[in-house]
Structure formats: C-alpha cells, structure tokens
C-alpha cells in the first residue's frame, strides 16, 4: 500500500519565538527547563510516522500528551514549529493558505470530539457545509448530503436540528459531514469519547463496517487503549508530546516498550487483541487411509494430547480422541473411521481469542483452517486459557 500521509520530525512549541525553544530542545534540554527559561510549552516533540492508504492509524495518549495538537497540524489548524507533513506530495506545514484551503475542502476532513455541529443549521445543512463552502449548487449539495446521511442511517432526520438528536446520532451526523465531501483522509479527534460506553461500542463497529467499503485513510485520536486496539491497523502511543511506541495491537500488548505502555496494557482485554494465530500449534494430523488407530495413539502419546485430527488427503475428515481409540482397540483393533468425530470446532488464524472460548469448551482441539478450508494448525483447548493467564502473569 502506498503511503498517504507522511509526518516527518514534527515539532510544536507554543509561545513566542518557538525557534528558541526548538534550539534548546535539540540541545537535549528537558521540557521543564525550556518552560522555566522561555515560558514556552512543548506540545509535540519529534513525531514521525507514515500512514498507508486505507489504513486506520490510531494515536493514543492521555490528555496533555499532544495528540490533539498533532492531529490539528495534519490539516493545518495548528502550524507546526518544525518538520514536514506530506499529503500526496504537498507539504501542509509550508504550503500557501489557498492550497491549504483546497486540501481541507477536497482531501482531508475532520470529525470532532464534541461533534461541533452548527446549531442553527439542519442536519442536512450541516452535512452539506463543506460542499457549500466549495460553492456547490444547492440541489447537488442536498443530494450528496442525503447520500452521506444514508451511509450512517440518518436520512430520516435530515431536516431536524442537531439539538433534537441524541449524542450518538449527532456524532453520526458529524461523521456524515466528514464523508460528504468524499475526502481521502479522515481525521477523527476523539470522536467517540463523549458518548456512552454502549453507544461508543456501536459506533466503533459501525466505523469498521463503513471502513470495509470506503477504505479511507483514517487518523484516529483516542485516550482509550481498548478503542485503539479495536480500531487501529497501526497504533502510536503518545506521552508528553513524544511517541513512546508504534506498532500493531498485538505488538504493543505482547511487547510493551516501557513501563508506561505496560501500565496501560495491563487492563486490556487480551482475548480481543490476540488471535488464534498466537496460540496455534503445528498442523499435527494422521491420514485416514494410511494410519491405523495404533499409530494415532502413539502420535497422541508423543505429543501429550487427548485428540488428533484425521485428514483424508488434504481435506479434514474429523478428529479422533485418545479415549475413543483405546476403547476401539480393546474391542476389535479396527479402523480410524469408526471413531471419527466429524463435528469438530474450527477457527481462522485471525479469529480473536474470545471467540475461541466456546469452541474450546467441546474439549476437542480447535482446527485452524486456511482460506481453502485446509488444516493450517491446531489449538489445544488449554492453550487458549494458558495464553491469557501466561500473558497476564508476564505483564
């Protein structure tokens, strides 16, 4: 995927004569020193990252970490003190005001924490705001606004005023307003933070749902690591204006860069972050046509497991358990086929762990299958719980 937004060594220092603070910062002075000496506050310090097209890049940090400043520099609402922000070859940090307006009108739109809907305009007028600013005729504007509202399921409220809607609906309008101009990049500044937890979950799922078809490049700001882990293809953790760690959800939870990150990941619901991939063992199986019950028992004893998968060629025929086979051996020493359990649990490598709980309850190992339905790995039921317990102990 090509890089859509590239942020290079960006700094923001609030106060008069920011270059003085910048000089001190580059000489390795601390933020406290700089504040004492010059009265300047360091907002963002040397942040660099690339966002690939169609990805959700989440910046997570607590209040005062500089994340809101960072996102506002991407559409030029705040001018960086140093560094570059390249969007499709244009440097937002240094381009002309007219070019910047053009980028805001056509390429980058924004969704705000407190919705920032215009109270004197109807829902449809709010959604059409960016189009009106561009000078689009009223009829086309209305049509496009209705399309955008349909995407978030609010066409019926087009002529209501924002204060007649619930918080969740208002933010849907905010999202529709962001989408109406069909931008390539969407900046979302804590869009769901002001919503109730249940509504927040719905909105997160809805965003992921929309993203599957829209494939926008999204830069998403949040103070909630859980939200970051659910939404982000890439996650950056910010503290005091610096990036502490950047990586995928699994990378961050599995290997926190320092104690600060570890403190956050401690309370995380690991079962949503880790996937079947992290607990899958090798695809150990016997062949239906060539292996006997005796072979299968020996393989299970060697591996220390209670059950094993049986393949018919490359297709999964089913599973056999140690107990069934030993009973079978006592009776007649017969073929594997008679003990075959064909109703076996299966999952994909990308299935999150929490979905494996119910599968693991059957007692059988879980078959990890690839796209063609072939056996790709096996998960021992106890491995699912061991993973969660082990990680918790390690953290």
């Amino acid at each position, binding site marked *: 995927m090509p890089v859509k937004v590239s942020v290079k060594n960006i700094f923001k220092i609030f106060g008069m004569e920011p270059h003085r603070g910048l000089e001190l910062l580059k000489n390795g002075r601390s933020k406290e020193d700089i504040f004492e000496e010059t009265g300047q506050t360091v907002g963002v310090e040397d942040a660099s990252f690339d966002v690939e097209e169609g990805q959700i890049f989440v910046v997570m940090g607590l209040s005062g970490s500089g994340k809101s400043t960072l996102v506002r520099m991407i559409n030029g*609402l705040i001018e960086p003190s140093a560094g570059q922000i390249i969007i499709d070859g244009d440097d937002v940090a240094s381009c002309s005001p007219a070019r910047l307006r053009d980028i*805001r009108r056509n390429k980058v739109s924004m969704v705000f924490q407190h919705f*920032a809907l215009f109270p004197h305009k109807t829902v449809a007028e709010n959604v059409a*705001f960016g189009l009106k600013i561009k000078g689009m005729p009223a009829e086309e504007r209305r049509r496009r606004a209705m399309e955008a509202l349909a995407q978030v399921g609010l066409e019926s409220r087009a002529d209501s005023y924002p204060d007649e809607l619930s918080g969740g609906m208002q933010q849907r309008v905010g999202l529709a*307003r962001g989408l109406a101009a069909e931008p390539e990049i969407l900046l979302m500044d804590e869009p769901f933070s002001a919503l109730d937890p249940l509504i927040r979950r719905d909105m997160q799922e809805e965003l992921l749902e929309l993203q599957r078809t829209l494939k926008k490049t999204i830069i998403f700001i949040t103070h909630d690591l859980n939200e970051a882990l659910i939404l982000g293809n890439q996650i950056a953790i910010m503290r005091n204006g610096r990036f502490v760690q950047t990586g995928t959800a699994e990378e961050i939870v599995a290997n926190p860069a320092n104690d600060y990150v570890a403190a956050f990941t401690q309370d995380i619901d690991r079962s949503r972050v880790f996937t079947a991939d992290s607990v899958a063992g090798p695809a150990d199986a016997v062949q239906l046509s060539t292996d006997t019950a005796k072979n299968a028992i020996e393989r299970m004893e060697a591996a220390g497991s209670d059950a094993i998968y049986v393949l018919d060629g490359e297709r999964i025929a089913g599973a056999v358990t140690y107990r069934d086979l030993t009973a079978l051996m006592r009776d007649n020493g017969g073929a594997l086929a008679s003990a075959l359990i064909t109703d076996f649990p299966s999952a994909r490598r990308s299935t999150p762990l929490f979905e494996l709980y119910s599968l693991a309850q059957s007692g059988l190992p879980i078959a990890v299958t690839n796209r063609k339905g072939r056996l790709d790995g096996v998960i021992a039921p106890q491995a699912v719980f061991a993973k969660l317990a082990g990680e918790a102990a390690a953290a």
Partner: protein
Amino acid sequence: MVSPSDFLTIPLDDWVNFFVKDWLVPNFRPAFRAMQWPITQVLNTLDGVLNAIPMVLFTVGLSLIAWRTAGRGVAIFTLFALAFIDMIGLWPETMTTLSMVVTAVFFCTVIGIPLGIAAAASDRFQAALRPVLDIMQTIPSFVYLVPIVMLFGVGMVPGIIATIIFALPPIIRLTNLGIRNVRGDLVEAATAFGATAWQTLWEVQFPLALRTVMAGLNQTLMLALSMVVIAALIGAGGLGLTVYTGLGRLDVGNATAGGIGIVLLAIVLDRMTQGLGEKRSVRTVSLAATLKSLFSPRAVSSGQTERAS
C-alpha cells in the same frame, strides 16, 4: 493650605474653546455639514412615508408585525397603545419621533455592526475602541450638544447625530461579544472544512451571534428613545418637543402626555425587537403575561418613565 493650583493652573476650558471655535468649526464645518446629507435623506423619506400613511392603516400594520414577531399579547397591546396616542392628540408628534429614532437606529446599525465585527476579529482594535465607547457612554450628552450645534447647526438632523453618538455603544459591544462568544470548536470546524474568514463569519459566527446582536439593537433603540427629549433641546421635534415645551411652560398636562407617548412607543418597540431576537422559538404570549412583563425589573422602559416625567 497649599494646593497644586497655587503653582500651576491649566486653562483647559480655553484650550477646548480654541480647539473647537477657532480651529474645528472654521476648518471643518463644510465637511461636517456634508456628513448630514445621508441622514437627511433617510429621515425625510421615512418621515414622509410615516406621516403619509393613515393612522388606522399604520396601527393595523404595526400590530400585525408585532403579532408575527412577538406574539398575540404584544399585538393587542400595540393596537391599544397606538389608539391611545391618537386619542390624546399626539399622533403626528409620535410619527416624527418614530422616524427620528428609526433613522438613528438605522445609522447605529450600519456603523455599529461592522465596527463590532472588526473588534471581534482584532484584539488590538478592540483595545483601541474600548475607551472610546466608555467615553461615549459616560460623558453627559449635554457636553457634546454644544459642539454639535456649532458644527451642524440646530434641527432634526443634529438631534439625530447626538442620538447616534449616545446610542451607538451597545450594538458595537454586543456584536463584538456575540461573535467572540461563538463556540471555538464551531469556528474551528468551519476552518477545518476549508471556509475562508468571510465564509466563517457569514455562515457560522454572525448567525450564531445574531441573538446577542439583536439584544444590542434593542438596547440601542431604547437609548435612542431616551435621547428624544434631550434632542429637542437642539431643535428636534416630535414627542420630545412636547415634553420640553411642557417643561418650559410648567404645563404638566402636556409634558405628561408627551412622556406617556414616549413610554408607550418604547414598550411597543422594545417588545417587538426582543421578539425578533428570540425568533427561532416563536411562541405566543398572552396579554396577561405581556402586562406582567411590563413591570418586570429587566424592562428598560421603567427607566423611561422617570426620565420623561
């Protein structure tokens, strides 16, 4: 006792006399006279129209407007108030006063709203404007009546100019305040969608400040009405003149009639402009509620009574 005046006396009165009489008046009188032109045009048009409309037609028309803007109660009150004014024989004077006040408010709006917008846009301009507005609001109007007469002469238009000076500050201040109080994230959102400063002003800031601006307009209107009697001192006609002559001749009846006319006009205009400011939630007010609101402490018109009588 020793006092500073033993060492130094400042002839401030002589300086001002010199500045106004020997420099400002001879050099700039034609320029000031020319400034009267637009005011004269607006006033004459308005006065002609208002006096040409038959009393009954005007009363019904204004009551209908009051009904649309402020509800049924205000409409009924308007009907009775105007009928009463006609019955006490002050209809022409009331129309003259109305045209004077509306002219003054019109120019206050034309001058005041752009100044308020400029003050909201620039902290430096606001800082410069503030003391000027403070002076305009605190200096007794009699102080500037004299130079106004010297520069503009006597008559209706100089009276209106004095009224504009007196009534201008609230609309500037409240336009400034209204725009500055628009939520920061809304302005930010407009900017983030690529709006220019003018688009932001026109689409977001001014519409959201409109309520406050209308409150400023209402205040300006009330101040303009309170200048009616003072403007009569320098030759403006209308209800102010009725009160002023009543005062001069100790004719308490005439003065009271003029005062009541001013008060009734003030109440009608006040309720109508207030209604305009709250237009989005148009609701009808019962007559009882209207009468009750006449005695509520926030009504500016209660101050009017003291001034007029």
